[in-house]
């Protein structure tokens, strides 16, 4: 092999403490090295040109660049050598900046160390082989899991671009948490007025297949070619026949069913459509509340249904969808305030959560938009909001800020004052966190124009006094204990990961943090990608988020899918494991350690069983390589041979 070595001075970044000329000179002594030089800025346009010229002039077959970290410029130099006709993997970098010149002042020691790192790179390169990406066709359909605002946005953007979209929603209707909101901050525009049309769009787009009241059972395959099993849960109503007329709801005798859409503030029927704008607008029987299912007698809905859509014998059904990419937009759940025994949520009807108050404010809510308290239906004269219930509190294992509560409290206080001009609103808060366009102005409006009284301090106890509640807390600005009597107390419960988020993550093979939020590929630069190729994130499943951020991520994830689908095939990273079949003993250890299920059995004609790597699934971690007893499976570009060569270079 004919190897060229290029030692970068990086201005004085490297040359300041490393004798680059000497390093280049020394490299000429190493085996196969036929050319070596140093250069001021190797990554610059003329620097790259210099490499390309040398490749042509000296008929180089491999290149070593001793410069900065490969995490910085490896792709740059790989492109450069590729332009000059070399395979991009016939290239190695020696990191003599971050690992040498920047961390030591001793010029002699640094120079020596740089020489060794170059030697190491040369020895590795001598064992490199050209690698070629393989191409696999892409199935240009996308699965969106979760039909909240983030998932809706992602689905619509993909559908607008002409993609086939499969949207899976766990609940009976899409809309997510946003469908439950009355108004949205900081503009006070009506939530269902801005979300409703988008929901209708989802129903009307011919290239969106909506599976509502369905869950993802299993996911197999890899980027470009996923197979997803979806369980359509039994609704006991044939949705193809159901017209959503609502006659069944009028006649259903089980009228005391807890209304989950209204956060248990009201009652509904056992057969029901959750809210008027539901998409799909189809009825479902809640089995545990249904008189027929519990007593065996009734069948009123079946008799009344004009289209004969009710079928009590319906069972869960499984459908299989083939897609090329997956957008996960499973959203969030709200903290259950039960661990705060001192607040009495659940014990006192007039201590409610923020989302419950949202339903009270809503014109389609349990009280038709009249602000009343749940216990006796009286209009409240004083409302206390308690911030950070289940946020920024280690004692309940929720140390993070939920990000939205400060804003939704301000909104709810403003709305409460709009509904009932005489009501006094108090807010107990720790800090006001209102970064975002027009957000802080909005909170100031609550305080200054709407006269909402903000008290900085935690609440210690909430207890009843007659038919009112007493909120006992600290005012840390006054340095005093305060007690506020209220007719209604709203706990601003925080955001937590969606129920079942971890189980879904296991199916998708994506990682999640200790609170169950999904991990993005890079916290700053790859916010909607996951470490599983072809799986993207949108919305609050990745962490607490408000509506604008969720929508932005929905569009961002759609853009990533469109970029992926802009090509007909996908090039896979060739730095993957490969099996030397003659050495494989068929022990199966690699199959059991592979975190990605990328290794499967393959039977040869003689009947023997060998490991076989699915190159598109393999992520190149090398776990199998370290595990394989006869070393039959080798991670390309990081083979035992290559690593031991580096080691030999250092120890010899």
């Amino acid at each position, binding site marked *: 092999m004919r190897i060229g070595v290029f030692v970068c001075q990086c201005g004085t970044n490297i040359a300041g403490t490393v004798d680059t000329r000497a390093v280049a000179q020394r490299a000429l002594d190493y085996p196969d090295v036929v050319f070596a030089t140093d250069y001021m800025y190797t990554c610059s346009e003329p620097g790259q040109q210099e490499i390309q010229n040398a490749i042509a002039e000296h008929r180089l077959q491999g290149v070593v660049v001793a410069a900065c970290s490969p995490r910085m410029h490896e792709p740059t130099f790989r492109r450069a050598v590729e332009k000059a006709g070399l395979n991009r993997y016939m290239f190695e970098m020696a990191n003599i900046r*971050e690992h040498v010149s920047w*961390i*030591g002042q001793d010029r002699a020691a640094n120079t*020596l160390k740089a020489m060794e*790192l170059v030697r190491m790179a040369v020895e590795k390169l001598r064992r490199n082989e050209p690698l070629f990406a393989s191409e696999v066709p892409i199935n240009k359909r996308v699965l969106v899991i979760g039909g909240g605002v983030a998932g809706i946005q992602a689905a619509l953007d993909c559908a607008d671009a002409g993609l086939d979209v499969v949207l899976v929603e766990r609940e009976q209707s899409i809309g997510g948490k946003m469908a439950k909101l009355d108004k949205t901050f900081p503009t006070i525009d009506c939530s269902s007025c801005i979300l409703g049309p988008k929901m209708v769009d989802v129903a009307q787009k011919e290239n969106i297949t909506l599976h509502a009241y369905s869950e993802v059972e299993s996911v197999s395959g890899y980027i470009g070619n996923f197979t997803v099993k979806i369980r359509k849960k039994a609704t006991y109503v044939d949705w193809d026949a159901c017209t959503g007329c609502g006659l069944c709801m009028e006649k259903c005798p089980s009228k005391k069913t807890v209304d989950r859409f209204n956060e248990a503030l009201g009652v509904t029927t056992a057969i029901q459509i959750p809210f008027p704008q539901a998409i799909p607008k189809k009825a479902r029987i809640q089995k545990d509340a249904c008189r027929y299912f519990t007593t065996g007698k009734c069948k009123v809905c079946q008799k009344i249904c004009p289209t004969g859509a009710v079928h009590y014998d319906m069972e869960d059904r499984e459908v299989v969808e083939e897609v090329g990419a997956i957008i996960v937009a499973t959203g969030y759940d709200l903290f259950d305030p039960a661990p705060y025994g001192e607040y009495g949520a659940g014990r006192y009807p007039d201590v409610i959560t923020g989302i419950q108050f949202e339903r009270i404010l809503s014109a389609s809510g349990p009280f038709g938009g009249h602000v009343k308290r749940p216990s006796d239906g009286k209009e409240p004269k004083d409302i206390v909001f308690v911030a950070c219930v289940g946020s920024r509190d280690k004692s309940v294992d929720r140390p993070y800020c939920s990000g939205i509560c400060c804003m939704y409290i301000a909104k709810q206080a403003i709305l409460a004052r709009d509904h009932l001009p005489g009501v006094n609103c108090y807010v107990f808060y720790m800090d006001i966190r209102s970064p975002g366009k027009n957000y802080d102005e909005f909170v100031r409006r609550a305080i200054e124009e709407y006269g909402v009284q903000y008290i900085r301090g935690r609440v210690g106890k909430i207890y009843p006094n007659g038919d009112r509640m007493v909120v006992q807390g600290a005012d840390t600005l006054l340095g005093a204990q305060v007690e506020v009597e209220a007719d209604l107390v709203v706990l601003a419960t925080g955001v937590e990961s969606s129920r079942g988020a971890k189980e879904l993550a296991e199916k998708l093979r994506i990682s999640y943090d200790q609170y169950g939020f999904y991990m993005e590929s890079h916290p700053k630069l790859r916010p909607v990608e996951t470490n599983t190729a072809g799986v993207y994130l949108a919305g609050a499943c990745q962490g607490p988020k408000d509506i604008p951020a969720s929508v932005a991520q929905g569009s961002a994830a759609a853009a990533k899918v469109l970029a992926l689908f802009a090509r007909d095939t996908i090039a896979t990273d060739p730095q993957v494991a490969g099996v030397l079949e003659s050495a494989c003993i068929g022990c199966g250890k690699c199959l059991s350690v592979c975190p*990605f299920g990328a290794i499967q059995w393959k039977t040869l004609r003689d009947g023997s069983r060998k490991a076989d790597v699915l190159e598109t699934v393999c992520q190149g*971690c090398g*776990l199998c390589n370290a595990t394989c007893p006869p070393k039959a499976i080798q991670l390309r570009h990081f083979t035992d041979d290559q690593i031991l060569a580096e080691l030999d270079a250092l120890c010899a």
Partner: protein
Amino acid sequence: MSEKNERQLRIVGFLCNWCSYGGADTAGVCRFKQPPLLRIIRIPCTGRMDPLFVVKALAQGADGVLVSGCHPKDCHYAVGNFYARRRLELVKRFLPFVGLDPRRFHYTWVSASEGQRWQEVVTEFSAVIQELGPNPGIGADTPMETAGQAASAFA
């Protein structure tokens, strides 16, 4: 032919590409000064670490071996470092049996943002190796009781 002739102590580092290699880069970017003993080999994941690499390095005369990866539960490949942790712990206990001083081998977890911690890891381990001096090779600096202790640790 080797620079080793000048007989400077050297440590071979195996760093995972995603966390610790990045952490070492971060330390460099922040100009956190470190002793010049360490030479770093980049591997995709500590799960790629064959125990053989550790033994070979020490047997061939490296004065120390340092392996560092992502913190447990933060592995880029989800579980690679869990496998590494088991294997490396066993290697450490196994070294006395082949006559290598287990103090010359250290493994740890450093994330890409922990430049400061990387500096501490390198400085501390370099001091250990300085203290131990040159690696005399297999069998030479392992008192029998160390092996005995290791044996009882297995029991």
